[in-house]
């Protein structure tokens, strides 16, 4: 790893996993509890190295499972420590019960999740099945498309989640191998500048032996709903704060700030391709090619899935004649989460464009710009003929596109 020092800035060439670890380091996390799982392992290995070398003053708790990792994070966050962990796929699934506990206890834990397909059949490559299965829990979800974004998202997640108007945990999601193990340059701002922007965590409440309190109380039907409404309200508040935190970050560090959506050539597009993660970057090449062939395409990459940016989706759709949605996810018996939720967001509009949706790249199958171009061309043809299609599986043998 090459490190160039320039006015306190570091230019490093790192994997997505190490970018996440650097985010935690510069955020000065105080407690890390994690259990290794491919392809997440090197996130926590790197943090262990930082702690071992004295470069990060944190308590590193070794645990026996992901369930325990999240439980340790909950305890640490509850005493007022800035807390970080990372996991993937089955590790995330094992945490499931504790993820509810973290969000409903209103603890701003930040977790890197390396998106990996679920087994069986055993598969360590990427799709969004693991995190999409956790989308109803009250965790903010940010999906990244490059390693700089991974680093930036971890830092901004603390700023956002620790705001007392939010106080919810956050998953920073990055794709297995495509990001987790791919080296890219990352710019790391000087520590003192980050410290000035991200002060130590001030908890709204903290466990204190001098003033004992009980958590996890029985809450009767007469009171439960109001607690849950407060979580919904916090998500709405996060929706307001996400672009604000992003703009602040941009202004302060000159890096790309957090926002809901990134668009490419959408201004005059007849057809917008809506997708997430690295496919949203790959699709830029497809858009250029499609335009050469006479299809005025654009691409929008959704960066934050929770809270779901209903208003952004509506504005995007209002400017387009048709939408093509590509999900790296399938909800069996329905379709991909991005397609389903986009349709929910649009159904209140009087006029909405036709939508064709695809399921692609499940279990780490490569989705190249040629694949995206092919899907978009087909979708364009179908919708021009007034025949949009839903949840079309792309690339399955025996289901080749006509």
């Amino acid at each position, binding site marked *: 790893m090459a490190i160039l020092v320039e006015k306190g800035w570091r230019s490093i060439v790192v994997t997505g996993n190490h970018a996440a670890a650097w985010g935690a380091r510069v955020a000065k996390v105080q407690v890390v509890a994690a259990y290794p799982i491919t392809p997440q392992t090197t996130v926590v290995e790197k943090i262990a190295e930082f702690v071992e070398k004295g470069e990060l003053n944190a308590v590193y708790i070794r645990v026996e499972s992901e369930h325990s990792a999240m439980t340790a994070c909950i305890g640490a966050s509850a005493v007022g420590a800035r807390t970080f962990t990372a996991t993937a796929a089955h590790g995330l699934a094992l945490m499931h019960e504790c993820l509810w506990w973290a969000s409903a*206890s209103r603890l701003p834990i930040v977790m890197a999740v390396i998106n990996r397909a679920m087994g069986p059949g055993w598969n360590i490559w990427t799709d969004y099945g693991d995190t999409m299965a956790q989308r109803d829990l009250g965790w903010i979800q940010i999906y990244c498309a490059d390693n700089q974004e991974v680093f930036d998202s971890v830092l901004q997640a603390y700023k956002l989640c620790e705001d007392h108007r939010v106080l919810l945990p956050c998953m920073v999601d990055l794709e297995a191998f495509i990001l987790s193990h791919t080296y890219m340059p990352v710019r790391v701002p000087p520590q003192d500048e980050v410290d000035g922007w991200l002060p130590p965590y001030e908890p709204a409440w903290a466990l204190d032996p001098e003033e004992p309190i*009980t958590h996890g109380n029985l809450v009767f039907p007469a009171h439960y709903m109001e607690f849950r409404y407060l979580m919904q309200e916090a998500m709405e508040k996060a929706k307001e704060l996400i672009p604000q935190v992003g703009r602040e970050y941009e202004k302060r560090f000159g890096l790309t700030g957090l926002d809901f959506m990134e668009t490419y050539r959408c201004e005059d597009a007849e057809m917008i391709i809506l997708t997430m993660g690295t496919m949203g970057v790959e699709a830029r090449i497809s858009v250029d090619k499609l335009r050469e062939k006479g299809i005025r395409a654009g691409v929008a990459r959704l960066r934050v899935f929770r809270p779901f940016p209903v208003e952004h989706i509506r504005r995007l759709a209002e400017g387009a004649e048709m939408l093509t949605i590509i999900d790296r996810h399938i909800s069996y018996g329905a379709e991909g989460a991005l397609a389903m939720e986009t349709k929910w967001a649009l159904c209140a509009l009087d006029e909405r464009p036709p939508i064709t949706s695809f399921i692609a790249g499940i279990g780490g199958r490569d989705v190249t710009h040629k694949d995206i171009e092919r899907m978009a061309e087909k979708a364009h043809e179908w919708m021009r003929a007034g025949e949009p299609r839903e949840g079309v599986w792309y690339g399955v043998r025996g289901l080749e596109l006509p």
Partner: protein
Amino acid sequence: MAELRTYEEWPLTPISKPTAGALGKTGTWRTFRPVIDEEKCVKCHLCWLYCPDAAMELGEDGFPHVNYDYCKGCGICANECPKKAIEIVREEVA
């Protein structure tokens, strides 16, 4: 819980301060009760330590005493007692 009128008055997450018997006298749930034999008891206080309901109280005489208002009769004290000084007796017999 205090009388709260709107969700805006709710705390962020349910928490409570420790209060004796917040759910009433839970000793009425009991089917079996622990009975301590002070002849056998060596005042090691393991029963006091292990009682999940803090229903074992230490007297000035050094012996543990069961608070039957809150003891649910789980039997953990008898199980932990190294001297077998705690007998578990069916309620109607005791």
